[in-house]
């Protein structure tokens, strides 16, 4: 056919021309080189073989095409725009226009020529990936994904880019302008549009989640196809529009008409696909809003307690049918006139019966409102049966989280993964309680109080019929009976999970717990990688479990623990009220396929890498020892601790990993309930679950200078009450941090009034006795009152509703070595004051041991440079502070002090060992940082027998914070001024970049030193409540800070500046002498020499009557505390001291200045 012949001809020569262009050659050769190295680096045995990528084979073509696509989407713009320019510029091409071919043939030929060239490049890059894929031992091959990603990622992007470039070039007819517009569109896609409105504008597939699971394949193919077809069709329509806009007289009416017809068809196709894509987004938003609004109607209603649930479940393709027999109890104070249940809105209720009588019911979105006929009186029970069928609407599951992939990203490396909350297909099913696949008498979200959660401990029975012979997984022991799998958990559970798939099972019984692993065929790679552990696995698991039980002071409450492999897309959002994520269910953990997203799960690679490192370091470690280490690392980072640091909209947060086993020790076993204080259970959990964590901040976050959770929470609570904060449903980890502080305060109160050890013993038994039961907080209060005579309930009102914070001042710290009996002991006394109008609590602990001491705190006593993030080890100073009074254990606390409003107390503590530093945690208070370390440098030796002082002595008045004869201006005071940059670079001026001023507090970071004065907090800095300073990058005198005051009495004044030293997180040193760290610390300095100090000369300008004196202070040689800058005569006027950023050091820091009148 001439038609095809012409297209082929034009395509052939267009491709030939482009292939010979230097731009394409450069791009293609560059791509080939880069992608060869990239594939080797990422996927080959000599490279990184990052487990999250190599575990799922589809990631090879995905990563390759994802990255190539970004490049080609831009390059194709240049080449396509060049197409028309070339035709315009070269008369030579006119000879082709006089040939007998239609414009359609010519434009399509050109398009196909460019397209096939790029597709060829894509295939070459994919071939490189495939080659590495074949070579790699860790990767299996998924050939279909190579084709799928080519069609999903590259083709629509190329077609759309080409079409758009053609049309713009045809209309604008200016190559430079067209480039600019097209590059702008590409940049807009990558930096702004990729996540908006359900990624509808993401023509480059830059953000849309297209990660393919090895278990279920593409999980949202309908959405992906529609979104990609939108741009494919739109691209084709634009190409056809180019045919019509092409500046050559047409020759074929037929082709022209066909072009118009197809243009309309493609536009219609694009519109349909666009509408489908938008509908998914809109539907999601609508469903979430509907869920929230429906919940708002019912959040103040009373719900029954579900005591028993027996579910008969039939799985039929992408639907299921179930009948649930429910037994409920009214544990409310009022009668229940209606029974309210939540059920996934996509499930249709067919009938509800009670005693074989049909009950009237209303369905309001996901709520089932049942009229039982007679009201259920408090304490009474009732039974009813609900039959329903249908599918699962996932947007219902977490209505308070939008589907915005930027706000709540879930990524494997740079690629977004679609977040799924349930799976329901013919071959695979996963339903967790979050999907409300069975009726539950509660709401999934309480709009006015997002931290509220209703927990029922329910006796479940589940009978599942699956005709495909797939493995059925749920909690409890399973019995198979005539095609039915029947599950009966041993304990009442907070929720039931069901998974059906082609699972294989392994079982291991350790101690009294049966460990079951459910995995897909071929996914048990760890057996081979950890082959040496076969014999010791039992002991290791036993050890880990015992350690966990010790940490939480609670026994693992279930007889089984199932580890179930689920598609990588399965993702739960964090809940404000609990650390529990849907990945961890009672006696069950849902792990990502092939453990892909878990740190340290690439055992083989880690093994070989570690082995090489050992050889290099002459370390002898057997294979078994190494595997033990790897296994332990994996278990710890996955189930026990593990950071999950991320930036979200510029805010750093450290979200705990999704697989923490901690909840199994509390959340799934105990529940403290309060109608008045619905957040109480979350507070209990938050406090009791903290032992496994690394302290207030993770390593990376700490390096960036983020504040501790404690301080963050106190800064927030300065503005708003706990209750109001919860109702505002703030984003990020705000609620988590606030819950922690509030929990710490509450438990410290209980300990302060009942005794630390006494409370621990009693509370441990109390929660064991109340396992799998809901405890009303008023009952808990009664029980405490009965046992200890302390009524804590009245404190809750101020704790929950109050906004005022106490503030603590600590003065007159003295330590004396005294002799009591025949023993030398240490008497610590200090004065604590709370000038604020509300009561508060703080606790005290000590760091003990001699210089270079060992064990806990040993590292802290050494003057070490904690370069890198490994510093501190188990003896980390901040670690010990942060841990005090958290979790079930509180043995590290020496004393907890309750301070009334406007009170001052002298506190006495006697220690058996020499204290090195006193550490105070002010918990909920105005003090920032709330964790204060007070070094103990001088110990007074008292001869003879001294009377010890232990306890508290209330003072008649609050001692003044500063000497009235001194004028102190702190960086927090109004007399402190930071100056703006005096010069702005022309580029910054042009771009409108303004001088930045640090607003919120941070901790000092030597990694990213700001070019503006950033307020930082540290307990060694000067301050009343807020111990802060400001710091900036050392520079050339273009920035300054000024302390000013009004001198009322003329005369000679000594001028001092405050240097807060010795407890910098990154550098701890005293006296300018460097000594290697003790065993608890990690000192990376191999040669014993200290690294160069970032602090050097600091230049103070002192303004006085005779002019200005510039005093240079050597930070290293300066004392910690007040440093005298000289004596000056000052008249009755404004006095000022200026510190500039001029320094040869990397950091300049300014804190406080004082003027002391000389007599």
């Amino acid at each position, binding site marked *: 056919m*001439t038609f095809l*012949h*012409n297209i082929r*001809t*034009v395509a052939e*020569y267009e491709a*030939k*021309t482009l292939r*010979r*262009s230097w731009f394409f050659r450069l791009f293609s050769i560059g791509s080939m080189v880069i992608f060869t190295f990239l594939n080797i680096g990422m996927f080959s045995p000599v490279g990184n073989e990052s487990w999250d990528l190599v575990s799922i084979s589809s990631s090879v073509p995905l990563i390759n095409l994802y990255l190539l696509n970004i490049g080609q989407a831009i390059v194709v713009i240049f080449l396509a725009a060049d197409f028309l320019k*070339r035709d315009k*510029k*070269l*008369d*030579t*091409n*006119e*000879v*082709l*226009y*006089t*040939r*007998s*071919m*239609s414009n359609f043939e010519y434009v399509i030929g050109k398009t196909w020529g460019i397209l096939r060239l790029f597709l060829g490049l894509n295939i070459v890059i994919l071939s490189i990936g495939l080659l590495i894929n074949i070579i790699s031992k860790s990767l299996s091959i998924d050939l279909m994904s190579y084709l799928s990603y080519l069609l999903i990622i590259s083709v629509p992007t190329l077609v759309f880019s080409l079409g758009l470039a053609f049309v713009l070039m045809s209309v604008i007819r200016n190559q430079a302008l067209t480039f600019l517009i097209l590059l702008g569109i590409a940049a807009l896609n990558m930096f702004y549009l990729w996540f908006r409105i359900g990624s509808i504008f993401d023509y480059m597939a830059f953000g849309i989640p297209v990660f393919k699971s090895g278990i279920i394949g593409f999980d949202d193919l309908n959405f992906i196809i529609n979104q990609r077809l939108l741009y494919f069709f739109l691209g084709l329509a634009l190409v056809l529009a180019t045919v019509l806009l092409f500046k*050559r*007289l*047409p*020759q*074929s009416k037929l082709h022209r008409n066909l072009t118009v017809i197809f243009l309309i068809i493609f536009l219609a196709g694009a519109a349909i696909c666009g509408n489908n894509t938008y509908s998914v987004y809109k539907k999601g938003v609508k469903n979430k809003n509907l869920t929230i609004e429906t919940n708002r109607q019912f959040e103040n209603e009373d719900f029954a307690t579900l005591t028993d649930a027996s579910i008969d479940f039939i799985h039929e393709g992408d639907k299921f049918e179930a009948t649930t027999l429910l037994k409920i109890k009214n544990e409310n104070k009022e009668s229940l006139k209606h029974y309210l249940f939540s059920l996934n809105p996509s499930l249709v209720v067919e009938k509800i019966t009670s005693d074989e009588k049909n009950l009237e019911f209303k369905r309001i979105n996901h709520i089932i409102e049942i009229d039982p006929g007679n009201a259920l009186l408090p304490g009474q029970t009732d039974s009813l049966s609900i039959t329903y069928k249908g599918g699962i609407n996932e947007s219902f599951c977490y209505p308070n989280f939008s589907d915005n992939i930027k706000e709540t990203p879930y990524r494997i490396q740079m690629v977004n993964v679609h977040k799924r909350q349930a799976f329901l297909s013919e071959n695979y099913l996963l339903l967790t309680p979050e999907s409300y696949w069975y009726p539950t008498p509660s709401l999934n979200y309480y709009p006015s109080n997002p931290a509220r959660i209703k927990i029922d401990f329910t006796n479940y029975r589940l009978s599942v019929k699956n005709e495909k012979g797939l493995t059925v997984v749920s909690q409890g022991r399973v019995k198979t009976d005539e095609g039915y799998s029947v599950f009966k958990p041993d304990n009442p559970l907070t929720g039931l999970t069901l998974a059906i798939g082609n699972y294989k099972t392994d079982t291991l019984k350790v101690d009294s717990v049966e460990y079951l692993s459910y995995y897909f065929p071929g996914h048990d790679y760890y057996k081979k990688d950890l082959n040496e552990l076969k014999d010791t696995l039992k002991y290791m698991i036993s050890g880990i479990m015992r350690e966990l039980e010790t940490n939480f002071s609670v026994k693992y409450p279930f007889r089984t623990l199932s580890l179930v492999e689920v598609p990588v897309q399965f993702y739960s959002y964090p809940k404000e009220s609990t650390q529990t994520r849907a990945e961890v269910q009672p006696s069950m953990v849902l792990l990502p396929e092939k453990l892909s997203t878990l740190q340290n799960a690439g055992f083989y690679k880690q093994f070989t890498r570690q082995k090489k490192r050992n050889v290099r370091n002459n370390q002898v470690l057997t294979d078994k020892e190494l595997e033990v280490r790897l296994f332990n690392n994996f278990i710890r980072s996955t189930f026990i601790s593990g950071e999950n640091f991320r930036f979200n909209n510029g805010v750093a947060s450290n979200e705990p990993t999704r697989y923490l086993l901690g909840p199994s020790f509390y959340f799934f076993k105990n529940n403290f309930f309060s109608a008045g204080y619905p957040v109480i259970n979350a507070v209990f959990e938050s406090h009791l679950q903290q032992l496994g964590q690394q302290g207030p901040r993770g390593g990376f976050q700490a390096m960036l200078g983020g504040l501790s959770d404690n301080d963050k929470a106190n800064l927030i609570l300065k503005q708003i009450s706990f209750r109001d904060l919860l109702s505002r449903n703030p984003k990020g980890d705000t609620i988590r941090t606030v819950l922690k502080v509030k929990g710490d305060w509450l438990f410290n109160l209980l300990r302060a009034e009942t005794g630390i050890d006494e409370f621990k013993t009693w509370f441990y038994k109390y929660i064991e006795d109340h396992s799998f039961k809901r405890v009303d907080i008023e009952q808990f209060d009664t029980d405490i009152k009965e046992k200890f005579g302390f009524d804590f309930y009245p404190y809750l009102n101020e704790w929950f509703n109050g906004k005022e914070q106490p503030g603590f001042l600590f003065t007159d710290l003295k330590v004396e070595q005294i002799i009591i009996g025949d023993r030398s002991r240490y008497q610590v006394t200090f004065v604590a004051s709370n000038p604020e109008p509300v009561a508060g609590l703080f606790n005290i602990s000590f760091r003990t041991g001699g210089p270079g001491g060992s064990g806990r705190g040993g590292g802290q006593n050494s003057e070490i440079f904690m370069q890198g993030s490994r510093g501190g080890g188990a003896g980390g100073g901040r670690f010990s502070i942060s841990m005090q009074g958290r979790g079930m254990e509180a043995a590290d606390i020496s004393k907890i002090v309750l301070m009334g409003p406007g009170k001052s107390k002298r506190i006495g503590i006697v220690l058996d060992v020499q204290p090195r530093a006193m550490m105070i945690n002010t918990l909920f208070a105005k003090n920032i940082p709330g964790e204060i370390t007070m070094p103990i440098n001088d110990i007074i030796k008292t001869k003879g027998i001294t009377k010890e002082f232990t306890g508290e002595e209330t003072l008649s008045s609050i001692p003044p914070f500063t000497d009235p004869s001194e004028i102190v201006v702190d960086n927090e005071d109004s007399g402190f001024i930071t100056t703006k940059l005096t010069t702005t670079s022309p580029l910054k001026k042009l771009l409108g970049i303004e001088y930045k001023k640090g607003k919120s507090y941070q901790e000092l970071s030597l990694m990213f030193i700001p070019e503006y004065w950033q307020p930082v907090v540290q307990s060694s800095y000067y301050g009343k409540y807020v111990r802060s300073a400001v710091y900036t990058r050392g520079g050339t005198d273009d920035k300054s800070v000024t302390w000013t005051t009004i001198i009322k009495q003329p005369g000679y004044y000594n001028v001092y500046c405050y240097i807060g030293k010795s407890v910098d997180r990154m550098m701890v040193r005293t006296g300018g002498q460097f000594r290697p760290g003790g065993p608890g610390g990690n000192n990376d300095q191999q040669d014993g020499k200290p690294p160069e100090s970032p602090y050097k000369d600091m230049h103070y300008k002192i303004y006085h009557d005779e002019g200005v004196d510039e005093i240079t202070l050597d930070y290293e040689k300066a004392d910690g505390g007040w440093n005298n800058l000289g004596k000056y005569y000052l008249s009755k006027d404004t006095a000022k001291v200026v510190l500039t950023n001029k320094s040869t050091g990397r950091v300049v820091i300014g804190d406080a200045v004082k003027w002391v009148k000389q007599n």
Partner: protein
Amino acid sequence: MKIEIQGLNQIYPNGNHALKNINLEFGTGMFGLLGPNGAGKSSLMRILVTLMKPTSGVVLVDGKDIQKNRKEIRALLGYLPQDFRFFTSLKTWEFLDYSGSLAGLKNRKERIKEVDRLLDQVGLLEVRDRQANRLSGGMKRRLGIAQALIGNPKIIVVDEPTTGLDPDERIRFRNILSQLSQHDVTIILSTHIVGDISSTCQGMALLNRGELVFSGSPENLVKHADGHVFKLTLSPYDYERVKEYYNIISTIPVETGWEVQIVSDNPPEFSSTNIIPNIEHAYVYFMEHKLHTEISD
């Protein structure tokens, strides 16, 4: 093949009236279109090769309106534009192959054979694999004519084909066209070089400022200049005077001064001989004396 141009007008968006009511008719053989720069030749050519639509008027090829039958007309066309110098990154044979393929030569083997035959005909076989961009100006022109010839077109339109060529190349080019004109094809040659017409064209038209000022055979044009071309031998002093009053066509230095040829309505005051005019003389006489148009080139 009969080509009729009826009432053809071309007005550009900037108001330039490039063609004014052109009426022409010619058949097979070579037809020359002569005129100074800006006369409207290229506009007419572009209309003839369907690159442009006239503002009004029709061009009929064997009675068929070319604008209504572009597909068929384009299948008959071979076109060499005026500016045929810049190529995309194609080799000589590839460019020809591309043109051949679009000209309907579908069989690859036959096409390659034809490509080589034409390259041989225009003397480019040796540079077959050279990048077309790297050919000399003359070679590019020859490649241009080869591509215009591929696929046996019935109408060949060549726009200013000899501009910028050295005399050898020019002669060579004229010869190729002459040979072609022996076949059953219509060659429309647009030029402002009068010599291109005289040697090859059976019919011709003269365009000036968009108007058709003459159409007929070159001989007819020459007849207009009969008795108006003179040869004079002049001293340097007289030469300056003649230059002031007459159109000098050629100047040859001789021992006593200059031997010049002039066109004039009347015999000059100087001693002169009447000579037989050629087409060049006729073109100058026609443009300068009939139309009072100053010939710039």
